[in-house]
């Protein structure tokens, strides 16, 4: 009879075959599969603004207004910000790419009235419209993960109040041809003069973000959020002007006995050189950290030699910061994702899933606060 | 209004076996200025197992309305819902008239190209499919002949062209052989209930005339074949 030999796997294979077991054995001796300690975060490298149209090594004709490149562990995230200009009278939240959707239109006096009786805390907040792409070696419709990430970025940005709507207002300039045939572009930075001379209508920037993720290892929201904030920080909004001669024209049309006036849109042109920096609400800037809690099996604990047992593993469950790798992600039934503002005073977003107790939550918030300060 | 009387069909011409080398069955139908080519392949082994039915033949129909077929030259999306709907209707119609249980575990694939379109899309396509199926030698219960009929100012009108279709309400029927059985009936605009019967009546009569013309062509072609055989 052949003797039954135990099969042995190298660690990398075991991690795939039985992620739970592999993780348990690692944790029992006080270390994580990625060789970090329990509460250690990965280092994050960030290069900002490299692709932007206003960056120093100016990429000509680029439509990118801000960008960032973030590396952490194996994962690389590239975020680019592009934009467009829309005529105002549309609340920015409902404007999507086809730019035509209008949710509610208020005449100016109506807004004042409304504001008195009904204060809307989100009315003054703006957001960008993010698209997240996780590279997976083929193309196709966006996966659920990508859509969820995109939506979370959008909601967190909108509710945290990092970008105010006012900062996206376009201060329009006017292009005129002087007598000697020279083309001059005038910007009315003094708003009082501008409102008199400039056109009566208002425009707003709309920002779009495209986030690409390479080599996914572990939950992505925190990295993607970081890259988005970094990109927004160096986002430059182009100055825009309209041509003086392009007046507000109405073209009458007649179709089947009905009359109508088709209104000519102003042509808005973006200045290739002049630009403003996007103003962010620094106080509201916050960084995200994620945690997971792993309950340690009695069994794994018993397998460890007493002398190997370190002080850290005496509780039955451990808190891991910055989840990485398949083993940790697959076994983490209890997760937390926390966004804390840079001063560490206010929380911007907390998502908890699974039975986390108060002590663990407190510790996680504490760590997230430190992390947020450190990343600033 | 192109100078026809109310119960007059447009010029109807058809040929079968137009592409003898490229398909099992083929036909060309000209109904007024609408021209349709239809190609039938099969019964054959289905391309994927999922389409296989143990007891019946499955039908695959594709309809290509070419962008140059109408004046606006709009490129039509193949998955446009209207086209999809027509395809489904045609499929259900011919599933009933082909003796599908004679060809178990096979597919019959039907492809129609609309070369020019001047009204009567569904009817021209239906007629061309009938002819191509006959040419392919696929067993059917009877002809399905199809024609449209409209209604204007108390008079029913037969076989409308594009201009008339745009402005009048009309219906398209598919009729089985010489009977008064309707295999297909599509009406998309308003017609007073009491006028419906009259419109239906001329459509049925028109359908029968088309059937006769298709029958003539099939017989002519059959005789041609026969004479070739005899000459050998």
């Amino acid at each position, binding site marked *: 009879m052949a003797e039954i030999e135990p099969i042995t796997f190298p660690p990398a294979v075991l991690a795939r075959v039985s992620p739970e077991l592999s993780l348990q054995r690692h944790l029992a001796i006080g270390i994580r599969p990625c060789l970090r300690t329990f509460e250690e975060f990965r280092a994050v490298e960030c290069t900002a603004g490299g692709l932007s149209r206003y960056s120093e090594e100016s990429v000509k004709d680029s439509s990118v207004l801000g960008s960032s490149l973030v590396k952490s562990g194996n994962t690389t995230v590239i975020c680019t910000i592009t934009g467009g200009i829309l005529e105002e009278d549309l609340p920015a939240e409902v404007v999507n790419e086809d730019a035509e959707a209008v949710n509610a239109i208020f005449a100016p006096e109506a807004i004042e009235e409304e504001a008195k009786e009904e204060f809307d805390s989100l009315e003054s907040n703006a957001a960008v419209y993010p698209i997240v792409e996780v590279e997976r070696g083929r193309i196709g419709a966006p996966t659920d993960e990508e859509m969820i990430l995109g939506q979370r970025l959008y909601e967190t940005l909108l509710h945290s109040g990092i970008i105010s709507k006012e900062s996206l207002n376009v201060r329009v300039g006017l292009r005129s041809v002087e007598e000697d045939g020279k083309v001059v572009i005038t910007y009315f930075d003094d708003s009082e003069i501008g409102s008199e001379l400039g056109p009566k209508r208002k425009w707003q920037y709309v920002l779009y973000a495209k986030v690409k993720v390479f080599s996914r290892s572990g939950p992505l929201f925190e990295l993607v959020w970081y890259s988005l904030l970094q990109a927004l920080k160096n986002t430059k909004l182009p100055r825009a002007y309209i041509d003086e001669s392009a007046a507000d024209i109405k073209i009458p049309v007649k179709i089947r006995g009905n009359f109508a006036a088709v209104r000519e849109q102003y042509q808005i042109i973006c200045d290739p050189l002049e630009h403003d920096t996007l103003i962010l609400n620094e106080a509201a800037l916050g960084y995200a950290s994620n945690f997971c809690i792993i309950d340690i099996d009695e069994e794994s604990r018993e397998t460890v030699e007493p002398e190997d047992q370190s002080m850290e593993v005496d509780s039955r469950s451990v808190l891991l910061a910055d989840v990485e790798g398949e083993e940790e992600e697959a076994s983490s039934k209890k997760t937390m994702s926390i966004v804390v503002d840079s001063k560490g005073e206010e929380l*911007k977003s907390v*998502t908890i899933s699974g*039975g986390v107790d108060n002590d663990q939550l407190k510790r996680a918030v504490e760590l997230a606060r430190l992390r947020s300060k450190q990343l600033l | 209004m192109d100078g026809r009387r109310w119960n007059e069909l447009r010029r109807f011409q058809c040929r079968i076996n137009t592409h003898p080398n490229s398909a099992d069955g083929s036909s060309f139908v000209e109904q007024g200025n609408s021209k349709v080519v239809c190609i039938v392949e099969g019964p054959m082994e289905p391309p994927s197992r999922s389409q296989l039915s143990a007891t019946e033949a499955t039908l695959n129909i594709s309809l290509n309305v070419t962008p140059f077929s109408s004046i606006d030259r709009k490129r039509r999306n193949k998955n446009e819902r209207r086209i999809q709907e027509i395809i489904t209707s045609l499929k259900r119609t011919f599933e009933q008239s082909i003796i599908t249980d004679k060809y178990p575990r096979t597919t019959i694939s039907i492809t129609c190209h609309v070369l020019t379109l001047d009204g009567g899309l569904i009817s021209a396509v239906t007629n061309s499919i009938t002819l191509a199926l006959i040419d392919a030698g696929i067993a059917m219960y009877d002809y399905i002949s199809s024609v449209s009929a409209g209604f204007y100012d108390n008079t029913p009108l037969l076989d409308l062209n594009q201009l008339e279709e745009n402005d009048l309400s009309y219906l398209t029927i598919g009729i089985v052989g010489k009977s008064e059985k309707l295999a297909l009936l599509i009406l998309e605009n308003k017609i007073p209930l009491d006028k419906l019967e009259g419109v239906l009546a001329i459509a049925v009569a028109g359908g029968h005339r088309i059937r006769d013309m298709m029958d003539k062509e099939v017989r002519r072609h059959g005789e041609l074949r026969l004479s070739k055989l005899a000459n050998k």
Partner: protein
Amino acid sequence: MESQTTVLTRVDGSADLVHGETRAIVSVSGPIEPKARQELPAAAALEVIVRADVGVADTREKLLENKLRSVLSQTILTTSYPRQLIQIVAQVLESGEDERYTCKEAASIINGSYLALIDAGVALQCSFAAESFAIAQDGEVITNPTPLDLRQSKSSHVVCYSIRDAKVDSLLFSDSIGSFTETQLYSVLARGTESVEAHHRHFRSTIEAKISKDFVWKLQ
């Protein structure tokens, strides 16, 4: 809050839930045969679908699906049904909130799913219930806020607890967004236990009514 079970006949379990301004109907089918790509060898696959009251489904509903799934994957005993599929469809009938918020809808579909799962007889590890909160500008915690409360709030929250023996057992899911302090978060979590227990008492009476209706033919 009003709730009713077995409102639909083509699915295995369903519940209609009205909570304040929000109304949702949830259906559960399962265990049924999954599509090949959904099948899991040792556990049941969960298909979670959330549909908006108005307009087409987009990423907003996907995020809601994700939240609901994270609650359900912790509570449904998926290992009892290997290779099977449990399909949960939540249809919001009246959102009762601005489209920029999702907390009221999230709480309602979680509660609705609980009743629908019970109705379908799908094995659950424990009971659960959820509630939505908002924190007003002055720091006051508002339970099940009105749309106006939400619009004026600083932050919005959803809290879902598991329940054992009619008492809150552990936190299953919590999602908070906006600006709030740590203490505020804890007070929301604490307030959550109270209202979740109250909801659970209501659900229990709904379930009791359902069971006595199910077994009406056993009576004399």
